């Protein structure tokens, strides 16, 4: 199980999306997010995009005001995860058009639906943007 969690956190450290692929209690999540955010947001642009934390490796990438943080285990290819983040942002951009933090906030469920298509059981299962977006578009049309 490669990916353990995916977080989107803004520059102020506020969580904008959180998806866990292993069960953590509310308190555990809160603690973990706090620690990670403190660690990653303090880093500057030049630094390596990978941070070790507890037994996770955090791969993170910043887009404008928003940080995308993916917690993976040791066997994961960090560069590939970094590109997975980019693919996610590209996919959201295709759907929302010039995607910004506010889009994710207003359409939290859509962002989650996209993730549900892309990642299952902590593995990347779909990378075709068309395949990721089609269920959401069909739902949009139907309702």
């Amino acid at each position, binding site marked *: 199980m490669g990916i353990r969690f995916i977080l989107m956190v803004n520059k102020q450290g506020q969580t904008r999306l959180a998806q866990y692929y292993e069960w953590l209690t509310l308190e555990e999540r809160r603690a973990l997010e706090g620690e990670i955010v403190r660690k990653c947001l303090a880093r500057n642009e030049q630094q390596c995009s990978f941070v070790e934390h507890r037994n996770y490796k955090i791969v993170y990438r910043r887009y404008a005001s928003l940080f995308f943080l993916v917690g993976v285990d040791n066997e994961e290819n960090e560069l590939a995860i970094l590109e997975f983040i980019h693919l996610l942002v590209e996919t959201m951009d295709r759907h929302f*058009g010039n995607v910004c933090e506010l889009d994710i906030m207003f359409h939290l469920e859509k962002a989650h639906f996209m993730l549900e298509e892309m990642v299952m059981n902590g593995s990347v299962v779909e990378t075709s943007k068309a395949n990721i977006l089609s269920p959401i578009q069909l739902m949009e049309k139907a309702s």
Partner: protein
Amino acid sequence: MGSQGGFYQSKEFLDLVKSIGEARSKAEEDRIVLSEIETLKRRISEPDIPKRKMKEYILRLVYIEMLGHDASFGYIHAVKMTHDDSLLVKRTGYLAVTLFLNEDHDLIILIVNTIQKDLKSDNYLVVCAALNAVCKLINEETIPAVLPQVVELLGHPKEAVRKKAIMALHRFYQKSPSSVSHLISNFRKRLCDNDPGVMGATLCPFFDLIAQDVNSYKDLVISFVSILKQVAERRLSKAYDYHQMPAPFIQIKLLKILALLGSGDKQASETMYTVVGDIFRKRDSSSNIGNAVLYECICCVSSIYPNTKLLDSAADAISRFLKSDSHNLKYMGIDALGRLIKISPEIAEQHQLAVIDCLEDPNDTLKRKTFELLYKMTKSTNVEVIVDRMIDYMISINDNHYKTEIASRCVELAEQFAPSNQWFIQTMNKVFEHAGDLVNIKVAHNLMRLIAEGFGEDGDNADSKLRSSAVESYLHILGEPKLPSVFLQVICWVLGEYGTADGMFSASDVTGKLCDVAEACSSNETVKAYAVTALMKIYAFEIAAGRKVDMLPECQSLMEELLASHSTDLQQRAYELQAVIGLDVHAVECIMPPDASCEDIEVDQGFSFLDGYIQEAIEKGAQPYIPESERSGLLNMGKFRNQDHHESSHGLRFEAYELPMPAVQSRIPQALIPSTEMVPVPEPMYPRETDQTPVSPIPSNPSNAGSAELKLRLDEVQQKWGRPTYTPETSTSNSTSQKSVNGASAVNSTREAYASRKPQVEISHEKQKLAASLFGGSSKPEKRPATGHKVSKASSHMVEKSHVPNSSMEVAPEKAAPAQPPPDLLDLGEPTATSTAPSLDPFKQLEGLLDTTQDALAANSATTASRSPDVMALLYADTPIGIHNKDDADLLSGLSNPSVTHMAGATARSRLSQSSSKGSNPKDSLEKDALVRQMGVNPSSQNPNMFKDLLG
């Protein structure tokens, strides 16, 4: 639901999001969320809430939990929402449930039924939503409830369903491998699925399966190789391309699988060489994703049976990584190097300077990775440098998790490769001093053992030198404040055993220090106990050597204090010390033979030496010893007899139970009877074995010789006098009350040498020296030019750094380019994208199907120089319009809205965008802006960042 749209959002919701978005602090955010909780608690249980309102409430619950507050009051409503007929509402319900509940939650049972129903739905999107939920909510117990349906769905006509069904099975496998062990053939079947998405998903369970049991899947090597070949040759649909790379995520997964299958298997590996070599050749090292695939190739090459050509390619790729300016690539390079040196250790030498650069990099992640590499390449020639570096680093960090790890690595390396005893002792001292309480207690025991036993190579002389140097350094270190408890234990033990052994230090020196330790650690009974025992040993050795013992005044006061201690352990030790001091030379020599910690203690478990004494006692009329088992048997018998009397009065019958007891008892060999039931009987102490034990054993009959009854007690004896290595601390005192380690600023001369900052030009010289000491074998001529290079690099260090951000900035837009072309291009392209793409896209899957089957199309996929137009063309031109409409209607009928056509879809979308979302064309964007401004959120308000384009 019509035009209202399921994604409709009320002003209330937008206001909430807005206020959360503009919250200035966590406290403010908490206030907003808390009042939201109050509102929802009231509202959510009102009757007849319209479902889109309810959907919004549920999303607000999701917000509450996401921001760290409990929303359990609304869980049941999320569960209810999964029953809804509307797909969007249902899916939102499922989403909320998967976010809120873990698989063992009580409410899950209410959802299983819904899932079962939805898995049978005619609408494949409903089935998909249910399968998503299956992956998150089904636990081991509920697997059987859905398993048959999931298996059936593996043959579903829709590839999206097949894919999710495979992942559901994968989940079941993760939860309980036995539940799907009979279904492995299904995975094999789906590996040949003609949809690349399904095939790609199947690789996930295969990776897990193969990691568990490589041999059962060797027959698939050829299949995996041929799939990888086809992927690399761009036979898959363009939809899977990512930045001109054909299906990179599938390639990576396949390479991971091949690495497992080829490990230690020459034959299997040989079939992989060509395809892996091809991927190396086709490398695209200009993009991150290209490098990700390259890195996976290196991992694969270093795992499978070695092949020189591939190893060369891998080494080449690694050197590119290491030479890159990107920290990410350097990181990958160091990691890859660590993998490859297991096969070809010489490769490390080529990259020595790059490695040292990474080691000195201010970036922590990179540094750690480099230490990992160094750890892997430590030899006896470079151990001193590496361990010193590690210790310096260990001292500099605060992260206890990593500190522990690196400390244990230092210890491991030092034990394995220590060039001299002196160095070993000093290294251990440093590790203990700075990470003492983080190291495993076993490490301390091991150190004591090593000092006691010596390295065994150079004879007694070297061993005693080792001990002297240990004693000397410990006496010196004791001056430091706040030493960790574990370290103090080691020090006390060693000082007790060897403090006065070489005559360099007098007993009063050593005992004085020990008293100081005991006083300083007034709250730590374990250390105190060690100190008292050490004192006893020293006095005993003094007496044995015929010298007169003068107890220091502080020592006397310590003893007085301990004689009245609340800890029985400490008290006993103090009394023993007092007793030993009063004994004569001969007795003391018997109790405490000098330097006997390594001698095996022969234990006469039968206590035959007591035979005479027993005999005498029996003759005087004492009762013979009755083994415990028999005693308790008798006791029980007695009880039973008593009960018999009772029984007659109560009318209860006990006969049936009475017989087996003694019978069983007598059949059990006495030796097997656990000693724990043994009742400790106070007895006069016997020298040597018993004087340390709080409880002395009962002398047993000679007939019981060899009985294991006493084993436990004797172990306790051994803990004091046997090999300290294996002995956990006997004292019952709490050894956990330890002082936290901190950066006790002890400066060591060796460390100083490295820590001292020197002018930059000299650093390069230092670096070169470091390289030489790390990599040892590197030849002179190779070093020379490298040094020259280094000097220039060092001087341009600052410049380089300022370049880094630039280059990393450059990478992002460049990468974004293909999928997200420049604005002008988008403006032309996007109207189609928003209106037709939605209905188009499902057929891309079909296309994929065609693509894989039609080799002819492969020619089509040859890379064209013009990037974005190519992508566009493929996206929109390739789709056969004819099939398109027919299938579209088909799809939508599944959604019970057959009348919606292509264009209607487009208009619906634009209407939608008025109310909530912004489209990607300028008009939609404007509308979005207008809307949010209307809501009072605007770029000039508190948090303008929320409006920034993420990809901008």
